[in-house]
């Protein structure tokens, strides 16, 4: 019933899903590309129905990044069908492969690579099947528009050919991809398939789902971490119109009502009736960086190069700080749970349906096989926000109200005070220059909490913390190099003979933290690229030339040169009064997309307000599948990172988080977004896809900070570069 309703709700033109089956246990086959190595069965990725329409299955989720559209293009190109004949089924534990999380700019590298290769192999199998039927060599046949055609004009449809293929067939190694020169769909800016519904009020999000018999829930969270419920008289609320149930399990408190507004009114009343003890005290916000620096940490040396070169003649050092920050999704987290008999279905905007299912199974003490988690889009998340927690809420409340779909949505202040933040961080850099202005020594340390506390276990869902037997969060672990967590991008790509980089991992978490777009890369690139600017100044060198002097990777040099050229980089050219220019570069994770950013800013000396005037960004994402999709991601990443860099800072007191709404956590609004952000792409046909979604975050921060330093003639090393902080610095 529910699946049919959902289908109806989200019906798109195109094929029905054929042959439902659960993915088998993953066999490991290292030779297969992308996620084919963990799910080698071709039918786990591509199915062809009787009409010859194509269904693509991906374990990744659409998060507004356009992955559904890009994957459509890959299959349409390699299979020679029109994009309109391709339907993409995204993350669903009942239908798709387990591809872990949709995170870390991995979707194109993992899932895209699997799908492009699986599509090409399915096409070649269809051609072989046709060759056998027609008694002709496969090489003489061609494919177009879902048919295999012989030189004599005979042709067979994919639908009839596919019937002969075994669904258990595994992918085999080998490159069957089309010559990129022949591409008709890949490399084109195909319009996003999800946008028309989103601009006309179609049902596009989990928030928009309306299942038959659905009821509405609201949670009453404790006032702070660890607070427990002392007293509650719920009789009055239970008698309110529409209220079906007050759910209380230990300190976990929620209300379920027929209508959404009734649930909101009842929630407020219940919040007023509940008495809590004080939770654990939060650290003093005024001294948070000292606190972080002083907490016990584990030093992990991630780079230690030593060469026998003459010591530098000039040394420079700096310390950079970034505050806690919020994902701040515009739509608070939401999920729907439905318990039917002993089976649970959860519709969720989680980034990882399989790990979320594992955590929910542990929370409810149910077997995973009895739980299905289906991804449905939510508001953009930019990492681990409240999505998984809301799914945990929906699961608990579905158990409390079986046989009826229970929709739960958080309130704004709940999203703001309970989401896992991106951690505050400290970095320290020192370097030495030789007489020729070359860096000969580089020492760098980064102090940070974990950058992922995703589920996993029941302790990663906040609902569990309030249950009669509270769940305990797993001990945080650092994400190892080469991707890294707090130390993501902590190793610069610059050539320096002596280089030591140490990641100081701090297990104790004063505030709840987890993954946010870019993880530690945002802070490390901000620090490294700010420091490069400071070193170039010390060396009396041009910003762009100084970077190129220390860089040999030709693709890195290409993006830097392109950004500089398009921006019209000329340090000698005069700018308007109180304007400045800045530059920064990074390759995300040192293994994904390359990005170089040049910006011009203005600084108002009276108010301290920084405005970004214009930006030129050059990006190399490997082979480009959808140019406009990449531009949209990079432009959006630039604006978002500008907001982090210029205004954002979590506020709290020792008693509670005080950034409860957009008044307490301002972000950039229309009047302060840049005048222009232009993205320039370097396409690399035939080269691997490089994840792009997070590539702009770090370089944007550093380019802005460098431009501010140029404009203001002083360096502020603590983020954000807010009017208050800038004004204080300018008048000091």
């Amino acid at each position, binding site marked *: 019933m529910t699946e049919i309703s959902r289908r109806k709700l989200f019906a798109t033109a195109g094929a029905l899903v054929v042959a439902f089956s659960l993915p088998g246990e993953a066999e490991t086959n290292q030779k297969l590309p992308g996620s084919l190595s963990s799910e080698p069965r071709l039918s786990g990725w591509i199915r062809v129905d009787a009409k010859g329409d194509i269904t693509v299955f991906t374990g990744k989720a659409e*998060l*507004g*990044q*356009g992955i559904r559209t890009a994957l459509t293009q890959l299959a349409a190109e390699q299979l020679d069908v029109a994009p309109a004949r391709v339907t993409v089924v995204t993350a669903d534990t009942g239908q798709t492969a387990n591809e872990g999380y949709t995170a870390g700019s991995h979707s194109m590298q993992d899932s895209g690579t699997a799908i492009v290769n699986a599509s090409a192999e399915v096409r070649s199998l269809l051609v072989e099947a046709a060759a056998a039927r027609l008694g002709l060599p496969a090489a003489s046949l061609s494919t177009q528009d879902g048919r295999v055609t012989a030189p004599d004009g005979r042709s067979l449809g994919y639908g009839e050919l596919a019937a002969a293929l075994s669904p258990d067939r595994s992918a085999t190694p080998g490159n069957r991809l089309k010559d990129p020169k022949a591409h008709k769909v890949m*490399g084109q*800016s195909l*319009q*996003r398939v999800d*946008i*028309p519904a*989103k*601009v*006309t*009020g*179609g*049902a*596009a*999000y989990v*928030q928009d789902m309306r299942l038959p018999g659905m009821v509405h829930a609201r949670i009453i969270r404790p006032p702070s971490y660890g607070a427990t419920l002392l007293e509650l008289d719920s009789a009055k609320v239970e008698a309110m119109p529409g209220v079906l149930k007050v759910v209380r399990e230990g300190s976990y408190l929620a209300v379920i009502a027929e*209508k*959404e*507004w009734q649930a*909101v*009114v009842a929630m407020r009343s219940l919040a007023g009736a509940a008495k809590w003890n004080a939770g654990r005290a939060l650290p003093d916000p005024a001294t948070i960086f000292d606190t972080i620096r002083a907490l016990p940490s584990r030093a992990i040396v991630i780079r230690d190069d030593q060469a026998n070169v003459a010591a530098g003649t000039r040394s420079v050092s700096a310390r950079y700080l970034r505050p806690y920050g919020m994902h*701040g*999704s*515009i*739509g*608070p987290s939401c999920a729907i749970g439905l318990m039917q008999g002993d089976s649970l279905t959860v519709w969720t905007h989680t980034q990882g349906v399989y790990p979320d299912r594992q955590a929910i199974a542990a929370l409810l003490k149910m077997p995973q096989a009895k739980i299905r988690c289906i991804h449905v*889009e*939510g*508001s*953009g998340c930019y990492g681990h926000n409240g999505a998984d927690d809301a799914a945990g809420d929906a699961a608990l409340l579905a158990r409390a109200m079986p046989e009826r779909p229970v929709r739960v949505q958080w*309130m*704004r202040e709940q999203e703001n005070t309970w989401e896992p933040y991106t951690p505050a961080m400290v970095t320290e850099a020192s370097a030495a220059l030789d007489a020729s202005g070359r860096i000969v020594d580089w020492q760098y340390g980064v102090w940070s909490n974990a950058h992922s506390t995703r589920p996993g276990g029941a302790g990663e869902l906040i609902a569990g913390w309030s249950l009669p037997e509270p769940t305990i969060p797993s001990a945080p672990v650092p994400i190892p190099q080469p991707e890294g967590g707090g130390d993501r991008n902590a190793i610069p790509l610059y050539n320096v003979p002596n280089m030591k980089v140490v990641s100081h991992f701090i297990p104790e978490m004063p505030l709840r933290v987890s993954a946010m777009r870019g993880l530690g890369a945002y802070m490390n690139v901000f620090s490294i690229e700010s420091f490069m600017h400071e070193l170039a100044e010390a060396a009396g060198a041009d910003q762009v030339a100084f970077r190129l002097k220390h860089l040999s990777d030709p693709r890195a040099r290409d993006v830097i040169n392109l950004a500089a050229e398009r921006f019209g980089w000329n340090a000698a050219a005069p700018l308007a009064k109180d304007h400045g220019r800045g530059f920064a570069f990074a390759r995300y994770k040192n293994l994904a997309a390359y990005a170089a950013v040049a910006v011009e800013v203005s600084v108002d000396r009276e108010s301290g307000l920084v405005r970004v005037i214009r930006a030129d960004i050059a990006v190399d994402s490997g082979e*480009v599948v959808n*140019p406009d999709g990449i*531009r*949209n*991601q990079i*432009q*959006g*990443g630039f*604006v*978002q990172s*500008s*907001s982090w860099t210029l205004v954002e800072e979590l506020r709290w007191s020792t008693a509670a988080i005080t950034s409860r*709404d*957009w*008044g307490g956590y301002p*972000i950039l*609004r*229309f*009047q302060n*977004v840049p005048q222009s*952000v*232009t993205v320039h*792409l*370097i*396409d690399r046909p035939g080269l691997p896809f490089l994840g792009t979604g997070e590539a702009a975050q770090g370089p944007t921060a550093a380019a802005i900070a460098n431009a501010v330093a140029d404009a203001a003639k002083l360096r502020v090393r603590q983020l954000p570069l807010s009017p208050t902080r800038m004004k204080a610095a300018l008048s000091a």
Partner: protein
Amino acid sequence: MISLNVNGTIHHLDVDPNIPLLYVLRDELGLNGAKFGCGLGQCGACTVMLDGQAIFSCLTPAIVLEGRQIRTVEGLGTVEQPGVLQQAFIDEQAAQCGYCIAGMIMRAQALLERNPSPTDAEIRTQMQPNLCRCGTHMRIIVAIKRASQAMGHAALPAAAVKEVVR
């Protein structure tokens, strides 16, 4: 019992006297366009039009709206036949997650009905109450200019699609 005119249709509804319009639109009328974002008048995700003005439906009690004209994004067009602004947002691909977009379109519609050829600065001032977390602002501004031009009033919008550099 109240009578509400939403997108030209009169609905007779029996609702709580304090219920904000947003919950009537979503829960009683099954409309998806207006979104819950904050419930506090701080983000604009819930923006709809009331007698030609953009309002926060999360703060506006439904009970006072008898006899007034309410418009939501559903009233501007459909997937098959998008309205001018909706088409401009599609043409400019002015969405990432898209959660803020219906509210953006309604606030822009109110502007264009009042001022068919707004300047960049006027667009930014009008759109100031609405938040986008994905950073789609630049494209939203271009889409509004494009719609303004399609309605026959404004200068050409800035080129939105740049060529791939090979």
